Structure formats: C-alpha cells, structure tokens
C-alpha cells in the first residue's frame, strides 16, 4: 500500500481523499492555490504546498507545478479527484513517465473512453446499445442535415471532447440545425480546444441512470449498482439517488452487465461510471463513461457500505478487488443534494462571499461532505458546490423526509444556496411520485 500520496485537487473532494488516506494510514500531501490558503482541510493534511495563484491555469490545472510539488514532497502517487486534471490523458502520461502512480485508469483506457466517439464504437463492439447517431465527427453541416432527416428529429449535437453541457444543442428541424451546428462548433472550440461535433437521436423525457463500476489490475470488474441522476438543471446534476426508483430488477441487472462489458472491453482499471439514458419504455442507451470518481459517489457508498475512495487507493496500489459481486449488497435508499453557492431566486447566479453563520445538518441517516466552515469565504474563482448532503433510509419516502428535515436545519448565512431549490424539488408532487426525467427541473421551476 502507499505510504504517502499527493492530492491534486481542492475543496470537498480534497478533504474526502484526505479522510480516506488517514483511515488507511496513508500520509496526504495537498496542493493549494493562494485563494485556498485558509481552507481548514490544509490543517488536516500531512503537508500542504502552495502551487500558484487563484487562477486554475497557474495552479490546479498546471501540470508542471503539480508534478514538481509531487517530486519535492516525495509522494508515490497522485489522486486527481474529479474535474481539473482527473481526465487529462497528458497528465496521466506525465505521472507515468515520472514514476508516480496516477490514481485512476491506465492511459490506454482513458484514451478509449475519453473520446466520446471512440467510446460509442467500443460500446457497440461490446454489444451495448448506443443512442443512434453519427459514427464520428461531422465535418460538414450537410452531413448533419442528411443524418438528422434520416433518423428523424429531434436530434442533439454534442462536442466530441465535451462535458457539462458545453457545445451541446437540441434541434427540432433543419432551420435550427443549421444555426446550431456552427454555434456548437464554436463553443466546443472555445471550451475544449476541439471543435469536433457529433450528432445523436434525442431521447425524449429520458432518465439519466449511471452504473458505478470498479476494476482491478487482475481482470476483476464489479459493479456497485446504479445512481439515478435525472434531476438536472442545464445538464448539471442537482439531486442523485440510488437505487433508481424506475428500474425493475431485470433492467437493473442488464444495465449493470452492460456497464461491466464496456469496462472490460476497455481493459479498464480503477473506478468508473458508465452513463446511460433510459427511455420511457425502459430501453437504455450508453452515452458515456467517466473515467474518474464522480461527485455523487457517496450515494453509492452509503447504500453499499463500501468506501470507493479507499478502493481507488487500494487498486492503484496494486491490491486486488477482494470481493465477489454477490457480496456487494444494496441496502435501503440514498439521496444526495448538492448545495451550491448560487441564488435560485436570481437564475442561479453565483453567490460567493464570507459565511458568517453555519449550522450543518446531522443526526440519523445524514452524511455531510463539505470543506466549508463558519468564517470561510466562498471564492468566485472555483466551482460553486460547497457541500453535499447525503441521506440513507429504509425507503424512498423516508429518505425524502430525512433529506427535507436535514436541508431545513442547514443554516448558511449570508450567501445564497441551492437549498431552497432542492427543497422545492423534494416537495414536488412529481418528484415524490417518481414521475421525473432529465427535463423535469427546467419544465417545472
């Protein structure tokens, strides 16, 4: 096992990784930018190294500085968390070249899954259904028009290297396709330095269901059941739950099996999430695989009792996944709400600033993952997510009740957060009745 690793991330996920390290007696070195110098988790780390100013390009995204910090702090491995460099193939390659273990998949598997078009091809080869669409990047508008007419509208344009909704457009006819093609291309170019665009059939009222998988270096791959992340706003997940309340036992099994097929086909090692869309008739389509730990991983942790970050560390250190699929039990229902420093009454505008009063929820069935504390200033520079509240109960009804009471006792002043928006969703008749899809939030709020 590792004795000392470096965490190349910040905020709640940096703290989350420190926690796992310390429970495994691993020393944790954290890098930080000047904007994070007062973060309380730096006190918990075994060493904290300032790598640059607030600007991510000069700190959390700066590969030479992070590698340099890893070298001077003499670590064996780097955990990239999520976001920042977590899916950066170049970073993973440089770690390898420097003899530092990258706590994530091998470069080869990242290459196969990181490019969405490649990933679709791989899924097809593995016999997993994919959303009908272009075989690759569409170079010309005319190709997009022809294909859209062949499949029938609506269709969706997506950036090949994209994520988080950027470079994405849903179009319903030839006219809107023409204008969207160029604007999506420009957006993708700006966001990812790659203007490649592909096209897919747009699934109406789909649910977003993803499978958590974990594979070791010895060919063992296991799933940890699914998460339903259909509550999204502008393609950003707000609330996640497990199990997916829409799945029957058979579909659940097929979904997990499909995820494992893809992972095995990619010779994947470490944690991954395989994302699917589920249409009204319970047909599922592979959309993409995320070659990293996800924000919403605690949902899976509380229903399975497995610490996924610890497994990431163990697998990266070369330990086998000493588990059989049937010993991974799923108990009860978990829901996670993301608390973002955004103002729901002002179109979710960022609401950074100093937290002068903070009372976190607690008690039975409640887990809170947060790096913020009373007196902490939420920076406008980084992601607005400041806390995750996760509840675990025997039934979905009880889980909703526990989440509501937890969010109601969450006091955070004076900044605005998404707590009221989450409460509105949890109280909505259609959410309670499980009649939701990925368009639910935009249609109803």
């Amino acid at each position: 096992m590792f004795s000392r690793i470096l965490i190349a991330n910040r905020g709640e996920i940096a703290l989350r990784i420190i926690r796992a390290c310390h429970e495994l007696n691993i020393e944790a070195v954290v890098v930080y930018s000047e904007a994070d110098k007062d973060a309380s988790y730096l006190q918990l780390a075994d060493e904290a190294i300032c790598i640059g100013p607030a600007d991510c390009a000069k700190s959390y995204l700066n590969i030479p500085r992070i590698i340099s910090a890893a070298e001077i702090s003499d670590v064996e491995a780097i955990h990239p968390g999520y976001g920042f460099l977590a899916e950066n193939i170049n970073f993973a390659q440089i770690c390898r070249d420097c003899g530092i273990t990258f706590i994530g998949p091998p470069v080869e598997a990242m290459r196969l899954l990181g490019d969405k078009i490649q990933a679709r091809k791989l899924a097809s080869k593995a016999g997993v259904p994919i959303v009908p669409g272009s075989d690759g990047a569409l170079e010309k508008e005319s190709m997009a028009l022809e294909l859209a007419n062949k499949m029938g509208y609506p269709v969706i344009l997506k950036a090949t290297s994209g994520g988080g909704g950027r470079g994405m457009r849903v179009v319903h006819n030839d006219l809107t396709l023409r204008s969207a093609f160029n604007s999506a291309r420009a957006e993708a170019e700006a966001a990812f330095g790659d203007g490649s665009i592909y096209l897919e059939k747009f699934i109406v009222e789909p649910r977003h269901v993803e499978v958590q998988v974990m594979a070791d270096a010895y060919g063992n791959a296991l799933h940890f059941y699914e998460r339903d992340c259909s509550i999204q706003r502008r393609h950003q997940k707000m609330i996640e739950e497990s199990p997916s309340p829409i799945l029957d036992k058979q579909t659940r099994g097929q979904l997990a099996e499909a995820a494992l097929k893809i992972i095995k086909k990619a010779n994947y090692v470490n944690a991954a999430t395989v994302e699917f869309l589920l249409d009204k008739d319970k047909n599922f389509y592979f959309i993409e695989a995320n070659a990293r730990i996800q924000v919403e991983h605690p949902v899976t942790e509380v229903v399975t009792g497995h610490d996924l970050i610890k497994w990431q560390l163990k697998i990266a250190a070369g330990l086998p996944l000493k588990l059989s699929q049937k010993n991974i039990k799923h108990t009860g229902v978990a829901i996670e709400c993301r608390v973002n420093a955004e103002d729901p009454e002002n179109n979710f505008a960022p609401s950074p600033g100093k937290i002068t009063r903070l009372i976190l929820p607690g008690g039975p069935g409640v887990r809170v993952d947060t790096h913020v504390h009373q007196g902490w200033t939420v920076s406008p520079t980084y992601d607005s997510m400041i806390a995750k509240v996760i509840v675990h109960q025997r039934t979905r009804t009880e889980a909703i009740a526990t989440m509501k009471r937890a969010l109601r006792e969450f006091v955070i002043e004076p900044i605005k957060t998404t707590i009221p928006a989450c409460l509105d969703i949890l109280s909505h008749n259609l959410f309670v009745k499980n009649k939701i899809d990925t368009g639910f939030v935009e249609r109803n709020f």
Partner: protein
Amino acid sequence: MADKDTDLKKIKEIIEIMKENELLEVEIKHGDDKIFLKRSQPHPPVGVIPSSVPSIRPEPGPPQHIQGGGAEALIHTYAAQATPSSEALAEIKSPLVGTYYATPSPDSEHYVEVGSTVDPQTLVCIIEAMKVMNEIKAETSGTIVEVLVTNGQAVEYGQVLFKVKPD
C-alpha cells in the same frame, strides 16, 4: 449601564488618541472578523519620524475585553508604527514550486549572497521543477539583506527567497 460607561470611556480614549496623533491605526477584532483602519500617508508627516519610533500604547497590559451589544469584542489601539516607505524591504518570491539552488552548478559560486546588489535582470537562483532548471531573476533593484532559503531546499509558490533593500 456600567458596561456602556466602560465602552464610552474606551471609545473616548480612542478618539483622543486619534485626534492627538493623526497617524493612527484602529483595530477592532472579533474572533475571525476584523475591522482594520489605517490612515494612508498621502502627505508626509510634519517632522521626521525615526524608523524605530517607540510605539505608543496608551493602555499597556492585557487586551481589554469590552462587552458591547451582546458580543464580546477586543479593541486594541496603537499609535501608528510608522515606517517610512523608503525603509520597506522588497521580497523576491519563488514563482514556482520546486527545489531551490543557489548556484548554477555544484562547484560554482552563489548567484547572490547577503550584500549582493541586484537589478531586475540579475539571476538570483535556480528553481528546479520537473528536471527543468528555471533561472529566476530578481525583478527588483537593491541590495540583498537576507537569504531565507538554503541550497537544495524545497520551496512552494510565493515563498519568500530573498529580502532586498531598495536603492
């Protein structure tokens, strides 16, 4: 009412000091919160203030706790410990995370030492990051008065390497 009398007395004292000294700092602290007010110096003060001016602490002794509005506050007053800006030292900070080397090669002499004069283009050290030797320039002019790192030491971003007395 006794508390409020005490508060008023303190505030009056602060005002008196503010008026008498003109150059003044008022610091009001509460836990992590702090209100710090300092008069900047648009006009040089009349008369020369030596750099080692003794600080005037009107109420020496332990910090005074003042009860006010239900909160416990801590109020310190100081006369300004004015340091003429010509005495301020410049700092050369590490622009990189890495390993500090004082010399271009093991047998060479140090780039700079205490007493060395530098200009913005003077090389002052090397920071090794990912096997790359990055030559670091002074980016200021003056005389090195302090070296805060030792050869081969790991340094983080923003760490102060040298203090420089400007010309």
